[in-house]
């Protein structure tokens, strides 16, 4: 079998993905694909996204048909240089073992729970050697906000993503829902996992948490990547924050979530349902209201970490979605000395909407 043959597989986005629909091909047989070219659209019950090529090559076969559902890691296409014969390509396709739909929940990475002083914290882990990356989600989010980033970053470094207290499946009874509590949760988890030092990556409120974690514990931070981050200016879209906190049903919540994306069609019913399910867990409503009051009371951001960041000696970068409707993109330029990347065509959830661009930036600092 020629080792010049490169398969194109159904990606796995997040731990719950079992199958995906190949919605459309953007390339056809005979196309010369370069790395990061958009090659196909894939949809799951959670989200739709465009898949970019990890490797380049000549597309010889489109095995997957548009509109069909395939299990994760199913063979969808084959790339190979023209020196490889059609017969060899056909043999490769014939010999490829199509994976079964994963039923066994023990295969692959899973969610872990740590019992910390602050309470139960959920996290996920991709281990390997090197200085680890810790991913910190934003207000009302959870570790699945890093769906399109975790595995890409894990190619270069160990990756950890956590649910902050009050979020996802972490502890909901939090005595003092504040920035200090969030920072302390990150440090407690790093201690628990024996992570001496980490590259901290934070999105939105998680950016503020990452920054404050670094400022309070400079020896624990290898670098800081702040994505559409809080803590870099006064303004925040209070209509979004209040709307998210007080939305009581799907009809109220859905229009608020549209603030998060440049492409509003990404807000599908599964996303709204999952957030509603989270908001309805005992304790979450009280928690979110208190956290909002502490962090974004009176429609303004309470914390500003720019001075602290400028005094902190570690590589820092800021990444922003050009169309961010939650925190103004102008905040990206606040930190002297930090690298700034503004990503076109993306909103507040830039790490989901333009994941490969964001992953490139994040890998730069690893």
């Amino acid at each position, binding site marked *: 079998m020629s080792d010049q043959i490169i398969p194109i597989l159904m990606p796995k986005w997040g*731990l*719950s993905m079992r199958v995906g629909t190949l919605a459309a091909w953007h390339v056809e047989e005979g196309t010369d694909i370069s790395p990061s070219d958009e090659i196909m659209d894939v949809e799951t019950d959670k989200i739709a996204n465009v898949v970019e090529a990890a490797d380049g090559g000549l597309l010889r076969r489109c095995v997957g048909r548009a509109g069909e559902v395939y299990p994760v890691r199913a063979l969808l296409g084959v790339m190979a240089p023209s020196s490889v014969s059609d017969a060899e390509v056909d043999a490769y396709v014939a010999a490829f073992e199509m994976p079964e739909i994963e039923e066994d*929940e023990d295969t692959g990475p*899973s*969610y872990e729970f740590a019992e910390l002083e602050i309470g139960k914290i959920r996290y996920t882990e991709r281990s390997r050697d090197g200085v680890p990356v810790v991913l910190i989600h934003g207000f009302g989010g959870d570790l699945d906000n890093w769906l399109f980033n975790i595995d890409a970053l894990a190619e270069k470094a160990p990756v950890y993503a956590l649910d902050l207290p009050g979020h996802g*499946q972490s502890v*909901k009874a939090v005595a003092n829902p504040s920035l200090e509590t969030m920072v302390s949760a990150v440090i407690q988890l790093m201690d628990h996992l024996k992570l001496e030092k980490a590259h901290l990556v934070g999105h939105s409120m998680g950016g503020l948490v990452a920054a404050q974690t670094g400022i309070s514990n400079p020896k624990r931070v290898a670098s800081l990547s702040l994505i559409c981050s809080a803590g870099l200016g006064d303004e925040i879209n209070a209509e979004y924050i209040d709307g998210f906190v007080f939305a*009581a*049903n*799907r009809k109220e919540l859905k229009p608020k979530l549209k603030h998060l994306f440049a492409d509003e069609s990404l807000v599908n*019913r599964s996303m709204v349902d999952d957030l509603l*399910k989270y908001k*309805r*867990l*005992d304790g979450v409503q009280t928690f979110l209201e208190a956290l909002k009051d502490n962090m974004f009371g009176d429609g303004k951001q309470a914390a500003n970490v720019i001075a602290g960041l400028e005094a902190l000696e570690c590589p820092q970068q800021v990444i922003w979605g050009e169309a961010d409707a939650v925190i103004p993109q102008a905040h990206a330029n606040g930190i002297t000395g930090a690298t700034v990347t503004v990503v076109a065509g993306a909103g507040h959830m830039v790490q989901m909407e333009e994941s490969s661009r964001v992953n490139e930036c994040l890998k730069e600092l690893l």
Partner: protein
Amino acid sequence: MARTLSMKDAINEAIDQEMGRDPTVIMMGEDIVGGAGSPGEEDAWGGVLGVTKGLFAKYPNQMIDTPLSESAYVGAAVGAATCGLRPIAELMFVDFLGVCLDQVFNQAAKFRYMFGGKAETPVVIRAMCGAGFRAAAQHSQMLTPIVTHIPGLKVVCPSNAYDTKGLLIQSIRDNDPVIFLEHKNLYASECDVPEEPYAIPFGEANVVREGGDVTIVTYGLMVQYSLTAAETLKKEGIEVEVIDLRTLSPIDMDTVIESVEETGRLVCVDEAHPRCSIAADVSASVARDAFKALKAPIEMVTAPHSPVPFSPALEDLYIPSPEKIAAAVRKTMEA
């Protein structure tokens, strides 16, 4: 990894968590501690199908096994509710409601109204409902219309384990009498259910499938059957929206009307008999409030106006099937 749970276990977990949270939550019923074949109290089976298994060992002071007297213990539960407890009374089958109906519709349902809003009756009456269990005419009925008809009662009939846990917790915390009906043929159906407690508000229908051609409005076991029909119809190019009412009182007609205004076609699916049913109720409301949106006559798919047959062959014919639902949808498309 998200955890899956059966509807039966979701009921158990909801009661377990609420009893743990609030010692005024008690449960009364026949064999809820023991049950057929039970060797002893500590490892007892827990009801007809084992729904309450393990709860007595955990909450011995909150679980009360009663004599075979629905009229006595349902009345006691209603009275206890007015005096500060939050009782859950279990009728093995909703078919047994007849012998305690005065306690339910003349007492529990009326207290808040007749005492000028000064009395609250936070009682939950749980019961299995529905056909398909080969349990004959006295253990198989879908009596949702009878209880939905009574002002002062809230009526819940969930279609999956996630909704069951959240709606049962809401029922226990609610300050009014709630009739909570569990389709016995859904007890084994599983889905993702959070371990933490959560409450789903009443009066919020769930759009379980989106589609632009025809709206199906249903609840309970018929949600699954309607989804099966929708899958078949998709292959024929018909996109069906399926609305799970979840609670029948209060009922979320806004969601129904909004959907029919988009699709212009309505099929009401109800496992109850056709006369004065939930299907008839929804049809009447839509005919009044969204008549101009309708492109075809409303179709109803229901059980016939007959008792549930004991003959398995006839019982299968009695229950609305995915095929009958699909046929009704096609009929609205042809009109």
